């Protein structure tokens, strides 16, 4: 592995005081005047919160937008599964919130591995997000006076989270979907459903379009534009079992990476503490239970290892409310990385609960006796029902069982302050970029970033790039750049279909996932990572010689779709491991057992690792090159994160 300090990473952060930077950028950036906007074509890949938001906003501004989703409708996407809420600094509850406090909490929560300027901007636009989505009809929870209600969330001591029951992500995605539908109706956006981006097209060092596969007919098609926006979400499905939807994948960002976009902090992944534990070997995915449950639920295990008693038979004084004991100030509301590791240790110490001993209790008995069952039902009714459907247990009567699961990836394509990747003309929005959450994301911040990037940031910054291409037509799709890329796509598909081995795509994906969760999951060490780095290429090689994909390209072929995605997960997983290996410190979700404090908390090394690792693809046979963007902290003092 070579390490280089180069100047290719210019984050383009505006000068001046923190609170003026975004205003300054919006003033400095080149504009495209309203009558010229229709001369520009923009491709947006992905129609989740960040993608639908970007596409709708760009359409409203007057650009010609083409939006792509592999789903059957832009109302799907995994943003829909976010349950608990969205943060904003309105300070409606009068509990001392401010832009600076949200900024501070987010930088601290991210264990000081994010960019101050980006995070401040996120906090700054958070209020406009609530205003906008309310105006668009998001049915947020309300007080009897008609005003908006708030709840509290992990990692914060104020109540700043707005919510729509336990379906906040659904309601926000639907507002973005509806804004997009409006633009489709008005003709500013052309929407392509069941269409997957399979390759990025480059010419003269910039992004000029994409190649797609129609998932119904198999048709390979080229689309050309002045700029390409990737809003394709995260890559938690590298673990196979995660809370991500079945179709979530890293192909778009990985294809961009292979074409020259640097990939930042790939090892920064979030394992969410409150998911339903796996029930058997054939589990296809894991289900999240909103973090908001930790507001009223108390987490505990028996003080006795291997305790086989039912939860309700364990007397109060034999229970260990370990988060309340270890972190009295934040209690059950410690940030996700801290809560996850604590649960992992309980299970490792043989205190796991449930038939497979693979969980901890999340108990609502106290809250129900204090507030009454009706209040709990109003707050979490739909989550309780979902839990009961999956586990066949009634959480009003017996404690829920929860365990951490891969959930969100803070890493992603490296972007500058304008959300532009290292490929000119290629932008990344939402979870697909790395920019705002450092090494750990706080709850209710993913929706915030998705909407912020989609509605407010990208539409404001993209004109700076577009203005350079006024009256220059997009590269035609019969250009050899497109023809060659289409051919490469065809070749890969033919190769996959011709292997005709013995095992399904999922068989290989599951094997990859098991390695990743064991060696590059909640805790990591050198030995395990080095082993994974040897093992992953072996599975990849085996896949390429032994996978069995039936059917043809010219039809709806779900095995073929998955195969293309798993091919990229092998390489992406390898980079995650490499990144975890080089970062000889613990921070946030990246926990190296070699680097811990006496209390077992993550121990950072700010002198040597206060940087963003950004990896450059060097081809399949050469290791990638590491570039570093040094992080500077002017406004937040770096301290040992303490939630005690």
């Amino acid at each position, binding site marked *: 592995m070579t390490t280089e300090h180069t100047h290719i990473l210019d984050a383009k952060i505006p000068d001046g005081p923190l609170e003026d930077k975004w205003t300054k950028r919006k003033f400095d950036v080149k504009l495209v005047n309203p009558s010229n906007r229709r001369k520009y074509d923009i491709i947006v890949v992905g129609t989740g919160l960040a993608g639908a938001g970007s596409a709708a906003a760009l359409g409203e501004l007057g650009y010609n937008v083409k939006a792509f989703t592999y789903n059957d*409708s832009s109302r799907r996407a995994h943003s829909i599964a976010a349950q608990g809420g969205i943060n904003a600094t309105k300070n409606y509850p009068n509990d001392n919130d401010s832009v600076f406090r949200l900024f501070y909490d987010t930088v601290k929560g991210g264990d000081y591995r994010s960019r101050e300027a980006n995070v401040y901007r996120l906090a700054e636009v958070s209020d406009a997000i609530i205003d906008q989505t309310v*105006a668009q009809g998001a049915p947020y929870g309300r007080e009897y006076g008609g005003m908006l209600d708030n709840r509290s969330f992990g990692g914060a001591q104020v109540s700043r989270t707005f919510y729509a029951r336990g379906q906040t992500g659904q*309601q926000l995605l639907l507002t973005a979907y509806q804004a997009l539908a409006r633009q489709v109706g008005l003709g500013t956006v052309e929407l392509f459903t069941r269409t997957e981006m399979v390759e990025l097209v480059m010419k003269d060092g910039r992004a000029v379009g994409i190649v797609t596969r129609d998932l119904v007919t198999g048709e390979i098609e080229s689309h050309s534009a002045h700029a390409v926006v990737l809003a394709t979400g995260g890559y938690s499905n590298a673990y196979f079992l995660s809370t991500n939807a079945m179709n979530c994948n890293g192909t778009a960002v990985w294809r961009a990476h292979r074409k020259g976009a640097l990939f930042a902090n790939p090892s920064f992944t979030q394992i969410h503490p409150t998911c339903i534990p796996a029930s058997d070997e*054939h589990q296809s995915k894991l289900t999240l239970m909103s973090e908001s449950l930790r507001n009223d639920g108390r987490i505990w295990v028996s003080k006795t290892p291997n305790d086989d008693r039912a939860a309700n038979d364990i007397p109060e004084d034999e229970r260990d409310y370990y988060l309340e004991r270890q972190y009295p100030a934040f209690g059950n509301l410690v940030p996700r990385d801290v809560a996850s590791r604590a649960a992992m240790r309980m299970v490792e110490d043989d205190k796991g609960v449930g038939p497979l001993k693979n969980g901890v209790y999340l108990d609502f008995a106290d809250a129900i006796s204090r507030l009454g069952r009706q209040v709990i039902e109003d707050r979490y009714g739909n989550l309780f029902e979902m839990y009961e459907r999956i586990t066949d247990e009634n959480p009003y009567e017996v404690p829920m069982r929860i365990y951490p699961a891969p959930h969100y990836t803070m890493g992603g394509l490296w972007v500058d302050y304008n959300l532009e990747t290292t490929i000119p003309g290629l932008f990344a929005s939402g979870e697909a970029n790395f920019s705002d959450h450092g090494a750990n994301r706080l709850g209710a911040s993913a929706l915030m970033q998705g909407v912020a990037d989609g509605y407010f940031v990208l539409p404001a910054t993209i004109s700076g790039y577009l203005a350079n291409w006024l009256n220059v037509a997009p590269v035609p799709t019969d250009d050899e750049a497109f023809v060659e890329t289409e051919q490469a796509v065809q070749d890969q598909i033919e190769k996959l279909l011709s292997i005709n081995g013995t095992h*399904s795509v999922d068989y290989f994906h599951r094997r990859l996932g098991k390695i990743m969760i064991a060696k590059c999951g909640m805790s990591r060490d050198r030995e395990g990572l080095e082993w994974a780095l040897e093992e992953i290429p072996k599975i990849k090689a085996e896949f390429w010689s032994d996978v069995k994909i039936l059917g043809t390209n010219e039809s709806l072929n779900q095995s073929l779709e998955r195969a293309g995605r798993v091919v990229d997960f092998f390489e992406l997983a390898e980079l995650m491991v490499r990144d975890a290996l080089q970062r000889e410190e613990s921070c946030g979700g990246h926990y190296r057992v070699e680097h811990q404090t006496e209390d077992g908390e993550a121990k950072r090394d700010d002198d040597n690792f206060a940087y963003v690792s950004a990896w450059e693809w060097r081809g399949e046979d050469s290791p990638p090159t590491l570039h570093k963007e040094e992080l500077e902290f002017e406004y937040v003092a770096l301290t040992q994160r303490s939630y005690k």
Partner: protein
Amino acid sequence: MNITLRVWRQAGPDVEGGFETYEAKDISPEASFFEMLDEVNEMLNDEGVEPIAFDSDCREGICGTCGVMVDGHPHGPQSATASCQLHMRKFSDGDTITIEPWRAVAFPVLRDLIVDRQPFDEIIQAGGFISANIGAAPDSNIILVPKPAAESSMDAASCIGCAACVAACPNSAANLFTGAKIAHLNLLPQGSPERYHRTVAMVETMESFFGSCTNFGECEMACPKSISIDVIAWMNRDYVAAQWKNFRKQGQQ
């Protein structure tokens, strides 16, 4: 547990389909319905038979991507439950289960259990939104929403767009889906300026694809989110009102 499956197989939209019978062996009762299908697909793949194509994404009952007829019931026998949240413990060892795609003229089968629900998007594009340009919003607490209205709006907004209501309806009507979106938006003060225009545009688009509602009520029973057919009554009320309101001239109130 061991289950016999009768599954609808159809290679493409223009090809005739039919039922095939498969044995699902050693299925864990803890498995979800689709995990059972995943296992059957692994077995078919091993045997050289193309796996059964079915739509499924979140597997948490929230995205609305999935939906199959299980023994004639949209999303299966468990009420208020999407197919992906159905678990095998609701069936018994030795059962025979028939699995079909949604059946509606407006939803052509693309392959096996997958249908094209594009008309739903077109109904939304016709008016299922509030025209609030990004950047133009006032402070959120300027718009007061009475809690009961917010709650009713949220009840309607929880529609996941799966189309079980259409599949359940003897006439393949989409009134529950359309009514739910109209109720979500029309119940809110933010939605009221476009109330009547929205209702007419969406209803007329709906009618160009789907059959008529006969107040049979099967849709409510099939809905995985238990959306009440009240939303259909509200939609009809606003549609009728729109006819004599001459809303374009009267500022729509």
